[in-house]
Structure formats: C-alpha cells, structure tokens
C-alpha cells in the first residue's frame, strides 16, 4: 500500500468514528424507547441536538477560568485520538503503532481527569459531587480495565490492538476460560465508563443520582456539544473495542484491497447494531444501582479480570 492510501484509510476511519458516534447513541435511545413502548426520538436526533447546541451562545459562569473553556477541546481531542486508535473495519492502520491498548486507556484517563477538573471549576456543589463520584468509579473501573487488558495481551502476546485483533481472528486462540472472564469484565467496565445504567443514568437530570451529568452541568452551547460528542465517541470506542477483541471476524487485514475494506466496514456496522441492541435490552431490563452498590459491581469486574490474568500466569492454555 502506498502512503496515500494509508492516510486515506486512516482518515476514513477517523471520520467514520466521528460521524458514526451520534448515530450509535441515537440507535440505542431509539431501541430503548421502542422496548418501553414509546416511539422515541428519531435516529438522527443526536445530530440535530449537536447542531443546535453548536449554534447557541455559550453561557459561562462568572468565575469560570480559562481551563473551563479549554477542557471541552482537550476531552474531545483525547477521546477522538483514542477512538481513532481502535481498529474498526481494518487492521494495521497508519497510526496503529502509535499507541497500544494501555495508552488508549491512559488517553481516556486524561479525558476523564480534565472532565473531573471541569466539574470543580465553577465551584458549585453538584460539580463536586459528580467529580468525586467519577473519581470513585474510575478508581475501580480503570484498574479492572487495565488488568483485563493484561490478560488479553498475554493471550495474544501483544498490547497492540491490531495484533490482538489479528490473533483473536486466527485459529490459534481457541476456547479459553480467561477470555470469557475478560469479556464479562470488559463489559462491566464499559457500562461504568460510559455512564450507562446500572452505574449512572445517561438520561437523568435528577441531581442526586447523576454522575456524568453533574460534572457537565455548567456547560452550554458549543462546549456542551463537544462534551456530548466526546461521550458518544467514547461509547462507540468501547463498543468497537469489544467488537475488535471478542468479535474480530471480517476485519480487513493490513494489506487488504478496497473490496475487503468495504466488506469489513459492512460487518463492523452489523456488529455495532447487534452490540447497541444488546446494550439497549440490558439497560431496559435492569434498574439503576445506589451509588455505594457500584463498588461491588465493579469489584466483580476487578476480580474477574485478576482471575483471568492469574489463570494465564498459571496455565498457558486456559
């Protein structure tokens, strides 16, 4: 492949995740609404919301600092870079060697770090509540994610996502207990990190139960649009990550032609639909937890991930 097509496919991947993220959110919302026998907003509603927010003035709290205004861009940049590093329709993209899975987690960590700071900048009680709870959730979710990555990386012999996906798609992987545990752990982490039910309610505006919304309460206009877009990107990232590691079939290899890439894109679209549907079903069938039940939920993920890693240390084939 020439450098030009490298850049083109990387660019296509980046635009795909950016453009597709609101659609995934809209799809999950629509399915949830249908499951609850509501008609729900149209699929394209998230795009309309974003455009509407972009057009509005920003109303900035009096004592907001420069950091408050920069943070939406930092969060967006961190999340978008992380999302562009996860293979979607094709492996071996141009920047795939720039950062591995651990770095992707850390990039998301940077975004969260700044988001928590934003919650505390204006100096309101709700911002603090959100940041503090986010700190607790992250302090369990992030290690669980990291240890899950350990177990997956040790099975695949690489922390490089393209290589992991390639290995998972090959016959060498077989059926492993540790992979099953890692899958459950990663799913729990994905729910927690994306502020989904049962950890947080993405639709809530009930002050005392919210985490993510409490942190971004003071944002408006284009800033809010960027933050919303970032959280949609993050959801897409986690869904793609699960798809890439655990459902690697059909992803185009590094040297594939245009036809294979298109087929990969089609399959990727299908995987997103299935996983988004499952997410909606899960969210409608479970209730939100109390805040201090979350550690138990995430603790289960942590334990599963540790067990998976330990199994890998003890036996090569489990």
């Amino acid at each position, binding site marked *: 492949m020439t450098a030009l097509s490298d850049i083109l496919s990387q660019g296509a991947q980046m635009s795909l995740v950016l453009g597709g993220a609101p659609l995934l959110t809209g799809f999950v919302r629509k399915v949830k609404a249908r499951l609850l026998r509501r008609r729900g907003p149209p699929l394209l509603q998230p795009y309309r919301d974003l455009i509407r927010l972009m057009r509005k003035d920003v109303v*900035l709290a*009096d004592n907001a600092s420069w*950091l408050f205004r920069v943070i939406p*861009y930092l969060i967006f940049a961190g999340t978008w870079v992380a999302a562009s590093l996860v293979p979607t329709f094709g492996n071996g993209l141009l920047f795939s*060697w720039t950062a591995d899975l651990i770095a992707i987690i850390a990039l998301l960590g940077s975004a969260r770090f700044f988001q928590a700071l934003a919650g505390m900048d204006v100096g309101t009680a709700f911002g603090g509540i959100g*940041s503090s709870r986010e*700190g607790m959730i992250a302090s369990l979710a992030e290690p669980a994610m990291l240890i899950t990555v350990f177990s997956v990386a040790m099975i695949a012999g690489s922390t490089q996502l393209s290589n992991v996906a390639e290995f998972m798609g090959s016959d060498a992987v077989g059926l492993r207990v540790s992979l099953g545990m890692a899958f459950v752990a990663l799913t729990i982490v994905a729910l927690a990190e994306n502020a989904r039910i049962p950890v947080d309610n993405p639709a809530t505006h009930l002050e005392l139960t919210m985490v993510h919304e409490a942190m971004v309460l003071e944002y408006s206009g284009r800033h809010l649009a960027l933050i919303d877009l970032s959280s949609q990107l993050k959801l897409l990232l986690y869904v793609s990550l699960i798809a890439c590691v655990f459902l690697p079939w059909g992803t185009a290899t590094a040297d594939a032609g245009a036809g294979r890439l298109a087929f990969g894109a089609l399959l990727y679209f299908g995987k997103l639909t299935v996983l988004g549907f499952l997410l909606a079903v899960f969210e409608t069938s479970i209730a939100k937890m109390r805040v201090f039940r979350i550690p138990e939920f995430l603790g289960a993920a942590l334990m599963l991930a540790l067990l998976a890693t330990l199994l890998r240390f003890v036996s*090569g084939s489990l």
Partner: protein
Amino acid sequence: MIAVALWSVAALLVLAPAGIVLSTHPRGSVILYGGCLIATSTLCVTALSDLLYFPHLTPSATLPIGLPWLGAHFRLDALSAFFLIVVNLGGAAASLFALGYGRHEDSPGRVLPFYPAYLAGMNVIVLANDAFSFLVAWEFMSLTSWAMVVSHHREAENVRAGYVYLLMASFGTLALLLAFGLLASGAGYDFDAIRASHPSAALSGAVMILVLLGAGSKAGLVPLHAWLPLAHPAAPSHVSGLMSGVMTKVAVYGFVRIVFDLLPEPVWWWSMVMLLVGGPSATLGVLYALMQRDIKRVLAYSTIENIGIIFTGLGLALAFKAEGLDWVAALAFTAAMLHVFNHALFKSLLFFGAGAVLGATGERDMEKLGGLIHRMPKTAFALLVGCVAISALPPFNGFVSEWLTFQAILLSPQLPSWGLKLVIPAVGGLLALAAAFAAACFVKLYGISFLGRPRSDVAASAHETDHFSLTAMLVLAALCLVAGILPGLFIDALAPVSKDMVGSMMPHQVGLQWLTIVPIAESRSSYNGLLVFLFAALCGTAAATAIHRFASDRLRRAPAWDCGYPDPNPAIQYSASSFSQPIRRVFGSVVFAAREIGEMPPPSSPAPARLQVEVHDLIWDVLYAPIAKLIGFATDRINILQFLTIRRYLTLVFVALVVLLLVVAL
C-alpha cells in the same frame, strides 16, 4: 570529569559555613542560592556529558581524608553519573526556586548553612567508592536535612516530625552499617574490593534484606514510611522538594549500588521480597495521600507511591536477572530508572508549586484555598502540568515509565518460579489501582486548591509568585513534556547504566520511525508520545477552528446555574474531605479503619450537627505504637538505676565486672 565534580562538591562544602555569615547579610540568601545554583548546574552538566559521551570510562580518585589507612575513594561510572544528574537537576531547580522563595524565610540562619551541605552530602553519596565515605555522607545528608526539618521549631508538629525523622534515619543508617559490616568482613571497605569478593548466598541474602531496610526507610517504603509524611512537609518548600524528589532517589541509588553492583548474582526470592514491599507501598501510599487535606502531606504520601513503583520495577529486574532473562531485566530496570528521573522532575515541581501557594496564602490546608487559578495563573499552569504528569497520563513523562513497567509485567509469565507467577499479577493489579487512585488524588489536589471559588480571605487575595520561582517551575514542566514526548532519547541515555547493572540493555530507540519507542518488538507493543501529542493537539485545534469558523463563537457571562439553586457561600463547594468520601467509604474501612461519626442534636435543640471522620494509620498502630510502648515500659523499669545509692552503684559495677570476666573466661 571527576575532578570537576569533586571541586563542585568542595565549593558546596565551602558555601555551608559561608551560609552562617551570609544569613545576617540582606542579600545573603541570593548569594548563597546563586552559588548553589552554579555548583549544581556544573555538576549536572559534567554528569550529563559523562553519561552521554564517555559512559564507558570510570574515572576514580582517592583523597587523603577520612580513615587514615583508607582515604576517601570516589568513582564516576554510568550509574553515578545518572544519579548525579537526578540529584543536581533537582538541586539546581530548587536553588533557582529558592532565589525567590528563600527571601521570605524569617530565620535564614536556620536554613542557609545546611542547604549547601545537604546538597554536598547527596553528591558525595553518589560519588563514593568506599563504605566509609558512603556512610559518612549518608549520615551527613540525614542530619543536615533533619536540621532543616526542624528549622521552624516553634510549631510542635515540626518538632515531632524531626524527632521521628531522626529516629528512623538512625535506624536506616544502622541497617546500612550492618550491611556494609557483613560485606566488608571478607574484603574491606573499598567498593572495588567488595565487588571482587564472593560472599556466600546466605550472607548476600542478609545484606540484601539489611539494605532494603536501610535504603527503604530513607526512600519511604511501607511499612518504614511513617516519618516521611511528617518530615517532608515540615521543611521549607524548596527543601521539601529536594527531600521528596531527590533524597528518596539517593536512597534508591544506595539500594541499586549495593544490590545490583556490589552483591553477586541475585537469587529469585530477593525479588519476591521487593515486590511484596513495592506493590503495597504504591497502593497504600496513594490511598493515604487521597485522605489528606494538607497539600504538602498529599505530595509526601504520593512519594511513597512512586517509590513503590520504582522498587517494583527494580524487583522485576532482579527476578528476570536471577532467571537469566537479561533483556527483560534491562526493560524493567530502565523503567525503574526512568521513573526515578521522572519523579524527581514532577515531584520537585509539585512541591515548588505548593511552596508558591504557601508563600502567597500562608496556607497548606486545601480546604482554605480555592480559585487560585485566577490569582496565580502561571503557577496554576505549571502545577497542572505536574498533576497530569504524576497521574501517569499521556503525553507526559509519568506515563512512559509506568507503561514500561507494565510491559515488563506482561513478560513475566516467562519466569519459571511459581511464587513469582502468583505474586506478579497481584502486584500488577496493585500498580493499576495505584495509577487510578493517583489520578483521583491529583484531581482532588488541583480541583480543591486551584479551581472553584476561594474558601478563605487569604485565598481570595493571593498574588502570583516571583519570577525565579516561576522559571524553576516552568522549566521543570517543560522537561516533563519533553521526557514524555521524546522518551527514546532518555531510554538510550540510560542504556550504559542498565548495561553495567543488569548486563544487558534495551534495544536502541532513537532512529526508529517517528521516534517511536519499542521496548521488545513492534509486533508486541510500541508507543509514540510525539505522535500522540501532535495528533491530539491537531484534533483539538481543528475542532476549535471548525467550531469558531462555522458554529457560534459568542459567549456570555452569567451567574453559575447550579440546577437553579446557586448559593453565594463558597462553603457549599465540595471540600477535600468530601471529595475523598466515596473512596474512603469503599476502601477506608479496611485500610484505615475509617469511621464516620455523626452527632445529631435532638429535635428542637439549637446545637449544630457534627460529622467527624476518624482515619487511622494501621501500620503506625500495629507496628510502631507497640514498639514505642515497649520502649516506654522498659525505660520506666530501667529508670530505677538512676536513683541508686553509691554503695549499690559500686555493687552493680562489681557484679558487671565479674559477669564480663566469666564470659571472657568461658
């Protein structure tokens, strides 16, 4: 090379007595800190050129001081050169910071004479090539820093800190003394002779444990950390920065010098001990840090975390070396050394920032700060960089060294020993926990003290700090970024150190495409800080440009919304204790025996309701309190001996003499 280094150390030693005179002079502190800045910069440049251009030369020198038949031996090899860079980079930054900060000192006579002596002591430790010089310099370092810890002796807290510090420092030196005693029993005090001797496995094991106790107590490993969070905050801020950022690294140097260099081939259980100490240190240190509300105490506890990470890396290096996997050992060792360097950068930066806040407001308690980003924008910016870097977030330097440590952990299933196979995943989990806690901890530190609304009048009327202090902080912040985006340069500079200590080095990094770092093979893992940074900067700028070009760029200021219930009282904001409440509730009951006691007055009573939080340091309660009690009990009993009559004293002496004679006779 070594001559330049020794002359610079001599200059520092001359500055020390000059400090007594200078402390009465109005511009004395400027002259003294200026002198220290020149001397440490010279040392730093010397060591850097030695490490980069002559890493295989090991010049040595012998001076006719010290013990009459021994003299003082000095040697400058790659390891010494690297640690000289760490010590003197921190020293130069602290001196630059102190050029501004030191002027506010009320009693300069209590700090000025000790400061250059302290720097000289640390330099001599790193240069020493015999046990006598090493130990004398070690004790010199401990005592001069102790003097500065108690420099503000009117606060009872500082006196207690000094007392505990002195006790623990003596304990550490005693352990090192015993270790050298065992080593020297067959060879003498000269390091070259010790290297050539072949102590037995049992003897080496005993030495290793003693060194872990001695150097570990100075570095602040759990459970020997008790003095550190007391002593580091008590000193003036530039000294705190040195103690936390640099002196703990000298302790790491002592450990590496003895265990990796002087002792023969390691045995696998050594690494087990280190991992079992390092992993818990990392997690516990940062959990303690999360519970604090005093900025400098948070930073001191976080040092314990970082030392834990460094010792974990060293432990992994020992494990791989013991099993003959030298190239992985080089990876783990390089990760540890890189973290040594990184931590020196960002911890100094953070302590200087805390000093700037202290100078501007007179407060170390976060719950009395807030909103400083408006009053001290430049300090706030520098400190933000420090907070992101220490939380191990890309594209800054802390991430690179943690990433390398994780890569080493991922290679450890290759180790044959079953004990290690069970311990290493657990340690990996602890490090992952520590990384997540660290982020929460520094969100808290920064968010409570710099963001939000001012919680007190001093915070509302704070002012930006002076130019010298700002320069020191901004230089360190810039170094944090450079080390984060060009890690390959630093890894390559460490190659000779790793070659000397573990017998192998990481693959050459500079020259790989786009300055990517690839610790093992590209198919395994790679990271490119430069591209991540550029990529993120590009995405952020593109988003900003696009939005301001095509969407609304209008902005209005209005009162905060706060769900419609804005309250002008700044006390409604989350405080440091409330921020950590969820984590305290999840982990605190186990780790700290934390309890929340709510006092509700009966209905109709006008008394206020109170919520009290009790947090215990269990290690203090379980380990130190019983020892203190035992010693108290024993001294009470022995106290009788002070009040004997002369006849009884004579009898006592006589009986003692007889017993001694019997012992000799038998």
